[in-house]
């Protein structure tokens, strides 16, 4: 699904603006929540005269994916609490019917709906999401598979775990587990951290549902998934998952995985420090950087001169620094191509390097390398310009 197209201003002149009270609730949810909810698609109106829009679709994070629910207000009747339309596959999710059966309805935020309270929608979304998590757990528990029943009984108690049924038309059904790993606060590992939402690494494990009882059940499909902002700090793609041994269960696997992960996360945190020292070491040799990523220390740019040829050097510093060397890109300040874009070199990462050098030596070696390399680049720039002429 397309990412959020919602903005405070109406998307186009033809679309009616959201009714003010609804808009306040939606804005509060989108900006102030610890839950990264997105508004997707066009808003629409439930009024006959269509002066105000009052309905929209929200993408609500669930089990490392999103569920799409329609929220329907009534601009003309603001006191009426909104109604919700769930996905086509969730016919069995009936929160209000369950409230009626258990008699817990008065605890719902719908029971004391205050249309002037901007927190209304956020409370409703959170309440329904929790009920949805429980609903999916119940669905998975009904699956007739001895191994899944065992997995559920051992890991379901883990806090924050989410499971869901994945029904496929061409394959047997699957059960997806989303297990939060490492109960640690990543913001404390990154000084000056800009993250708005709490960051998490999840293990996604997909088990095929088998109604027969094979002697060795197939291994689940395993994958680590992190929240998007975490990528600039720690790459889950670069992490090698421990192997799944036949006959293993998640309760055995997860502690082993968390142990390895913990070590690497601590290394990633230490890597920020070494990247910072590298950037600081640039100043004596290259002069003070024009730009530098001060938080994750992944990028720095310096201005260099060789004779009268002025150019920029962009340093892209990998997460595995200093094991992997920075990638250099040269950009001319004097030459542009036919589209008016400054000419840049190919990324360079084949220059002499040793992770054992101290930062000053690293920078000096790069400087020595660039003294020769910039001549090649200068030639490339002049050729490029003469060709366009």
């Amino acid at each position, binding site marked *: 699904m397309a990412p959020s197209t919602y903005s405070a201003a109406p998307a186009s002149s033809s679309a009616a603006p959201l009714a003010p009270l609804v808009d306040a609730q939606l804005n509060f949810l989108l900006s102030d929540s610890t839950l990264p909810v997105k508004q997707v698609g066009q808003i629409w*109106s439930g009024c*006959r005269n269509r002066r105000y829009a009052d309905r929209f679709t929200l993408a609500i994070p669930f089990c490392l994916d999103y569920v799409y629910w329609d929220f329907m207000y009534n601009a003309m009747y603001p006191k009426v609490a909104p109604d919700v339309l769930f996905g086509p596959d969730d016919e069995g999710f009936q929160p*209000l019917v369950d409230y009626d059966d258990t008699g817990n309805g008065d605890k719902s935020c719908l029971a004391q709906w205050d249309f002037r309270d901007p927190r209304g929608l956020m409370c409703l979304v959170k309440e329904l999401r929790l009920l949805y998590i429980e609903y999916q757990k119940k669905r998975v528990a009904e699956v007739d598979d001895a191994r899944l029943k065992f997995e559920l009984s051992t890991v379901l108690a883990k806090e924050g775990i989410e499971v869901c049924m994945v029904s496929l038309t061409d394959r047997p059904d699957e059960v997806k587990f989303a297990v939060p790993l490492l109960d640690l606060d990543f913001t404390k590992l990154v000084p000056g951290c800009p993250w708005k939402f709490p960051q998490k690494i999840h293990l996604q494990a997909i088990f095929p549902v088998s109604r027969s009882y094979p002697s060795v059940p197939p291994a689940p499909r395993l994958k680590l998934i992190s929240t998007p902002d975490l990528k600039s700090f720690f790459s889950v793609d670069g992490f090698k998952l421990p192997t799944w041994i036949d006959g293993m269960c998640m309760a055995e696997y997860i502690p082993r995985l968390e142990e390895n992960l913990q070590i690497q996360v601590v290394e990633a945190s230490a890597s920020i420090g070494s990247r910072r020292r590298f950037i600081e070491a640039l100043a004596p040799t290259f002069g003070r950087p024009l730009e530098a990523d001060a938080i994750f220390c992944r990028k720095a740019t310096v201005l260099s001169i060789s004779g009268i040829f002025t150019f920029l050097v962009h340093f892209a510093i990998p997460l595995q620094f200093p094991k992997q060397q920075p990638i250099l890109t040269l950009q001319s300040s004097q030459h542009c191509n036919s589209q008016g874009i400054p000419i840049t070199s190919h990324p360079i990462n084949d220059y002499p390097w040793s992770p054992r050098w101290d930062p000053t030596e690293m920078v000096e070696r790069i400087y020595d390398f660039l003294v020769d390399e910039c001549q090649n680049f200068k030639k490339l720039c002049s050729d490029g310009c003469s060709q366009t002429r």
Partner: protein
Amino acid sequence: MAVGDSAAAAAGAEEVKLSISGAALAALLHRCGAAAGDCDGLLFGRASRPPAPAPALSDYDDDHHNGPAAPCLSISVSGHSSLSSPSSLSDPLGCFRPMTAASSTQTPIGFFSSSRRRHAPLRPSMRELALARSLSKTLPPPAPVAHPLLFVLVSPSASPDLSTHSFDYRAFLLLGSRLVPASLAVVNVGPGFRDQYHSFVPESPFPSLPTPAHESAGGGSIGEHKAVDSMVEGFGLGRLQGLVGAAAGQAAEMDAMYAGMLRRLETLAREVEKSNHRVLEQEKRNLMLRYRSAGLE
């Protein structure tokens, strides 16, 4: 209705024929289209289980009657009542809230909800499902034929310049705790719908005329006099008695009674017209107040 899960499952197993008269559907859609926003209301009609299939009228369709036809439940919608506002039937949690003005003489066979939706095919929302469950628990057991609760979901839409209005609708039956889509046949006048007329049983009770007490000289109480007088506009009970008592040839008297009734009808029509105006004005005032409370000004 007190339909438990087992009974509902049994109802689900048998075929249910849903129908609505063209006029009732038109009135329902007009109600949905004319409301300022969403609206909901109750549906009235009757459920019946024809004991035997109608006898074949022609020689050609013998194939139909080779096997014994399964007894099939038919539910027909004949009308609706609505307050023309959203969630008038339920509280925010979808519990049925009886309308104060609803007449208690008839038991609803279901309810409808009109809401501008975006996704096709139409699906019941969270609250509609809860209302269906709650309504089926609240309503008295349907007599004489037990049937699942009917739900009609309408989604009005209009072209950008509001010149063309279209209505998407879908019927559902509450089976167990699920609303299962069902096809809804529209019954119109014409030879194609003869079966419907065969199975028609009139339901509207004939207004009961007060029977004059023969033994008493006064001929009924003053209240009865007044009631009949208002019905026939000046055509007194005495004259009516004369009419009933006399043998024949009372054309003039008949004419007088007819004219009296026409006069009465005309005054009624005037009153309706006037009150309609007042309703419209009140609706305008309500709309302004609603705008103000929603902060839309």
